[in-house]
């Protein structure tokens, strides 16, 4: 009984997944890619393997021809931290990052030919971290400069995930302008959401780097990254500390969070419940005895086959009947009165113009 009560206060997850999405393309949106890669780095460092991370980057900054330091994506001025490295596995790249693909990843409605690395193979004991960054507005997030995902769509996708038991708990972090509008519509249980700014506020970028020429990070994610750099897999820091990251004095915008759908108290939720891949290990001192006679399971099916009549294809549509049917003759004809009236008028006009004396030529 006490175990069960304790279970209530601990997360019941057995695996962790992360879906990290950067939705902007073009060189001047470098910071969104750097944001996503920073979170990717932290998540990987804390133990979630690449097989459990779906990384979607809308553009390639490391090999962008405008990058003065190719094959790097820096997250800090003075190039202190290269978040690209040589072990980054991008699952959805460039034009594959679309609203449709994102929603298919979340809901699992993926064509059978999709490789495993592009699937979110979560189950009902998975804790999923979803991080999205890019350009957004009140109620929408822009994908690739050509389409948008709305907060309603996102809420419905999460509800589909809940109904298909694809998550145990979900942490949704968004770093865009007016990010809080994206979590307003959630209605599924066990979702906690954080956003970098409230509705009506813009999320600002951190610092430009004069060597690279663009802003390297957004403020909110920069301070989240700084916070996460101090977390190690055994740390007991909880979510309340994450809510305090980046106060208004540092971030200019007001970060927001939403915990009303979450069943546990945020103070008891560890950061590593979502950002890391900490397994719960139960040590037992009992011994289990396995039965010797495990081989030779008897066949349950009788040997003789039931005599059934030969199966044949049932006729769904009486094709032979249809193709030999004559087409229905239902022509429309103009009513007699109309024809009479029309031609009478035409003849009247003709004779009015040319005179009655021509009538004898007609007859």
């Amino acid at each position, binding site marked *: 009984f006490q175990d069960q009560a304790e279970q209530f206060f601990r997360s019941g997850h057995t695996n962790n997944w992360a879906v990290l999405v950067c939705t902007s393309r073009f060189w001047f949106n470098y910071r969104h890619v750097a944001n996503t890669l920073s979170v990717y780095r932290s998540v990987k460092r804390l133990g979630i393997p690449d097989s459990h991370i779906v990384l979607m980057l809308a553009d390639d900054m490391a090999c962008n021809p405008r990058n003065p330091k190719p094959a790097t994506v820096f997250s800090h001025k003075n190039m202190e931290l290269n978040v690209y490295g040589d072990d980054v596995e991008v699952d959805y790249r460039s034009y594959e990052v679309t609203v449709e693909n994102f929603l298919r990843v979340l809901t699992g409605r993926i064509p059978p030919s999709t490789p495993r690395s592009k699937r979110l193979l979560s189950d009902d004991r998975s804790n999923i971290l979803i991080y999205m960054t890019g350009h957004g507005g009140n109620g929408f997030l822009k994908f690739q400069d050509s389409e948008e995902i709305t907060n309603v769509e996102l809420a419905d996708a999460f509800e589909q995930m809940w109904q298909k038991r694809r998550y145990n708990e979900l942490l949704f972090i968004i770093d865009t302008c007016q990010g809080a509008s994206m979590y307003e519509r959630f209605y599924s249980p066990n979702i906690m959401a954080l956003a970098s700014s409230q509705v009506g506020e813009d999320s600002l970028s951190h610092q430009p780097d004069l060597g690279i020429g663009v802003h390297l990070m957004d403020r909110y994610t920069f301070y989240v990254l700084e916070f996460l750099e101090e977390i190690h897999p055994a740390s007991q820091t909880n979510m309340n500390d994450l809510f305090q990251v980046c106060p208004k004095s540092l971030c200019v915008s007001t970060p927001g969070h939403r915990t009303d759908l979450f069943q546990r108290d945020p103070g008891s939720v560890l950061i590593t419940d979502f950002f890391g891949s900490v397994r719960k290990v139960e040590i037992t001192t009992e011994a289990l005895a396995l039965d010797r006679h495990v081989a030779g399971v008897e066949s349950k099916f009788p040997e003789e086959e039931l005599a059934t009549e030969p199966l044949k294809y049932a006729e769904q549509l009486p094709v032979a009947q249809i193709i030999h049917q004559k087409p229905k003759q*239902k*022509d*429309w*004809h*103009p*009513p007699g*009165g*109309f*024809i009479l*009236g*029309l031609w009478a*008028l035409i003849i009247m*006009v003709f004779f*009015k*113009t040319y005179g009655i004396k021509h009538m004898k030529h007609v007859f």
Partner: protein
Amino acid sequence: VVEGLALLDLGVSPYSGAIFHETPLIIYLFHFLIEYAELVFMITDVLTAVALYLAIQDFNKVVFKKQKLLIELDKYAPDVAELIQTPMEMHYIPLKVALFYLLNPYTVMSCVAKSTCAINNSVMAFFILATIKGSAFLSAVFLALATYQSLYPLTLFAPALLYLLQRQFIPIKLKSKSFWLYTMQYASLYLCSLVVIICLSFFLLNSWDFIPSVYGFILSVPDLTPNIGLFWYFFAEMFEHFSLFFVCVFQINVFFYTIPLAIKLKEHPVFFMFVQLAIISIFKSYPTVGDVALYMAFLPVWSHLYRFLRNIFILSCVLIFCSFLFPVLWHLWIYAGSANSNFYYAITLTFNIGQILLISDYFYAFLRREYYLTHGLHLTRQDGTEAMLVLK
């Protein structure tokens, strides 16, 4: 039209769908002729050309007679000999008009596309023929037919009336009794034929629902498929609560120029008719290149204005370029996806500006020639220096 006939065969009113917006007489016409559709459109084009040929032949005679009269009455200034039109140069104008219409790429395109604009053009050409021949009855009947087809030829009532009055030598004074008598006669002929035709269409389908489908459609512009006109982009961008206001403004724009032009051009009703036709083609709610072809067919009639046209080179370049750019930008927008509707809209704007400038250029040239005819070619200001005519 095929859709409408198919719906009729299924026993449903053809106006119940949103595609068919033609009048019942077209249903009747095509009910029997739908298999020979290409032939029908070719014959209509030929008929239009023949009607225009005969009309302009008659018109030339009228112009020449009037010119002679004015010379004898000494209304012209002494040094305008080079501005007078001679029979020699006017001999080939009817043929040129017919050829302008038949060989115009716009006409060919609308014939190939089997657009019912060809039928509208044909009716309007017959109307013009009837007016120039002087038969008020036929002119009223054809004008009623043309108005019944598409609402805008209503504005051609004014030039036709002015021409017929001129032909009957009735002076256009507001107090003159014979003026009002003739106007009433013509108006009543026109309205009666219109009413008769509409009632006849009622008997075709035993329902009045062709009226909102045809006239309601023309006036309220619900369908915003891109065409070469100006309505679709405006109304695609507009907010709902403004659309009624702007629909009214745009529709009034078509009818608005009739009265000022009638006052200015009351001595020259056929030119007025040309300008009015052009205004209809530019400002109507669903213009097509067939409408443009109709008024362009009249350009040879005023070829003697060539020396007064100021922008004709730029305009012809604009019109030709825009005609070529229309399909290119359409392809880029709809098929290639690398342009957007603004490109196509810019070309419609440019095309319509070109047309408007063409009309105003001809208007200016016409008025200038008239002024020179009565005041002499070499105008001087009060202090003796050379003067220049400006259109205000």
